């Protein structure tokens, strides 16, 4: 047909390789096996979901309508959550600069940066909530262990990000400043720092957002904030009050999220 219509110059269509290669089949089989094993292990199934429906419905009924009774008690936990996030972000960001520069392979010495990296890996190795759990044991209940937990994790992540930003610094300007006879301090201040600053601010803002989210749940292990109030409400079955706390959490997280976006658009 094609030849009759004068399309002889068209190259023959290449043979399509089969979609069902042995390799892909193997991957699919392994995936299905792991998947069904997981479904069995976690007890997640449509049946369980349907059986759970009345319970979910009952919980929903308990939660709505939200009760405003005792809402004045929410102010302190609300501000506590906000301030835990702010404080942890400030402390984390302050520590991230020296540690980040000391942990960068291009400006630091292996004797310094290998140990620093190891410590940072441990810091961000476990979640904030687990750090909070440990700090609650060490320093007692309240917002203090929450701040410490967020700080440890934030230092771990932010320092690593700063170190990566420093390693990505263009060496040209540094060298140019060095050839003018500037001291290492000035090389840092006018060569490296301006290149790292925008990234640094982006990370700091991102971690403010992140820390606020985390601060809302730290209370579940006794580390202060809205989470602690929420845990209390749920453990005494006052779900209508819990809903009010949850709504407040959503408002706080959304507000900080928007504010961070706004600040970022201003900076960059």
């Amino acid at each position: 047909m094609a030849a009759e219509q004068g399309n002889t110059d068209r190259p023959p269509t290449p043979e399509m390789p089969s979609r069902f290669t042995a390799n892909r089949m193997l991957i699919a089989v392994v995936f299905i096996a792991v998947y069904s094993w997981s479904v069995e292990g976690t007890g997640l199934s449509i049946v369980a979901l349907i059986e759970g429906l009345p319970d979910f419905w009952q919980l929903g009924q308990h939660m709505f309508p939200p009760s405003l009774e005792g809402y004045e008690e929410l102010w302190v936990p609300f501000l506590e959550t906000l301030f835990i996030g702010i404080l942890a972000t400030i402390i984390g960001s302050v520590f991230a600069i020296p540690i980040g520069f000391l942990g960068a392979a291009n400006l630091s010495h292996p004797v310094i940066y290998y140990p620093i990296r190891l410590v940072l890996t441990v810091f961000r190795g476990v979640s904030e909530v687990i750090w909070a759990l440990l700090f609650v044991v060490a320093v007692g209940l309240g917002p203090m262990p929450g701040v410490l937990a967020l700080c440890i994790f934030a230092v771990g992540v932010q320092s690593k990000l700063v170190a990566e930003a420093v390693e990505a610094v263009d060496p040209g300007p540094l060298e140019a400043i060095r050839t003018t006879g500037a001291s290492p301090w000035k090389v840092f201040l006018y060569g490296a720092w301006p290149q790292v600053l925008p990234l640094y601010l982006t990370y700091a803002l991102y971690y403010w957002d992140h820390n606020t989210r985390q601060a809302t749940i730290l209370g579940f292990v006794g580390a202060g904030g809205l989470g602690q109030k929420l845990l209390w409400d749920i453990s005494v079955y006052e779900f209508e009050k819990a809903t009010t706390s949850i709504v407040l959490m959503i408002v706080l997280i959304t507000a900080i999220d928007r504010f961070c976006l706004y600040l970022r658009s201003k900076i960059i």
Partner: protein
Amino acid sequence: MNNATLDAEIDSLIKLRQRVLLNWLFILTVILAVGGYAAWFTGFDIPELVTGWPHIWNLLKRMFPPDFSIVPILYGPLIETLQMALLGTTIPIFFAVPLAWLTAVNIREDHVLGNIVRLFLHVLRTIPELLWAMLLVSAVGLGTFPGTLALILHTTGSMGKFFYEAIEAIDPGVIEAMEATGANQFKVLMFGIIPTVLPIYMSVVLLYWEFNTRAATILGLVGAGGIGLTLTHAIQAFEYDEAVTCLIAIVLILTVIDRISNYLRSKVI
């Protein structure tokens, strides 16, 4: 004449520099003031940390050396954690993809429905997975089932956002070109949108696999199964050397998943 303009220029540059410095000074003052107030409000003080040091030291002494005799009983919870993370990452794909398609503004005209879906996704992801877990545990009881559901709910919200943002970032030319050939919406989706966003989706899924594994390790703190439950029990029983073994196990599996995920990412992208 020439000198005068140069002087003026230098003058204005100096002024600009002073203004920038003043701005920075102002911002730093505000941050310091807010930070100081925050420290006061949360009762955060360093002296207390220093005077409490013997207590922390005591805790550390009780944590080391780790008690490795409990390793055999950790396998079950660890596997549970991995299973929850796997399901909590893969099942949301089936919800997030259609929801993202419903709400991406560049391919859908229906903004009412789109905005409702967006709000829904926003609420899903704003509530942390630990809170979802706590609510679901109080509804259906302890176990991995509420934990997995919690991961699914939170991940659907987060993935949905990444997914619709990926669709919205598509070059409009691709869609226009396809529509010009007379392709219907389904064909535009299958052959225009999906191939374009697939690499991003895959990297988002891998990201959430890591994220959910990390989250699954803490779900046990509210009774939703996994290694966190073992950790909480150890701490509540004051068996801190056992708790450290749990922590080591957590760090190990997180590192392994991180490596696998990085390897897969380098493969698919």
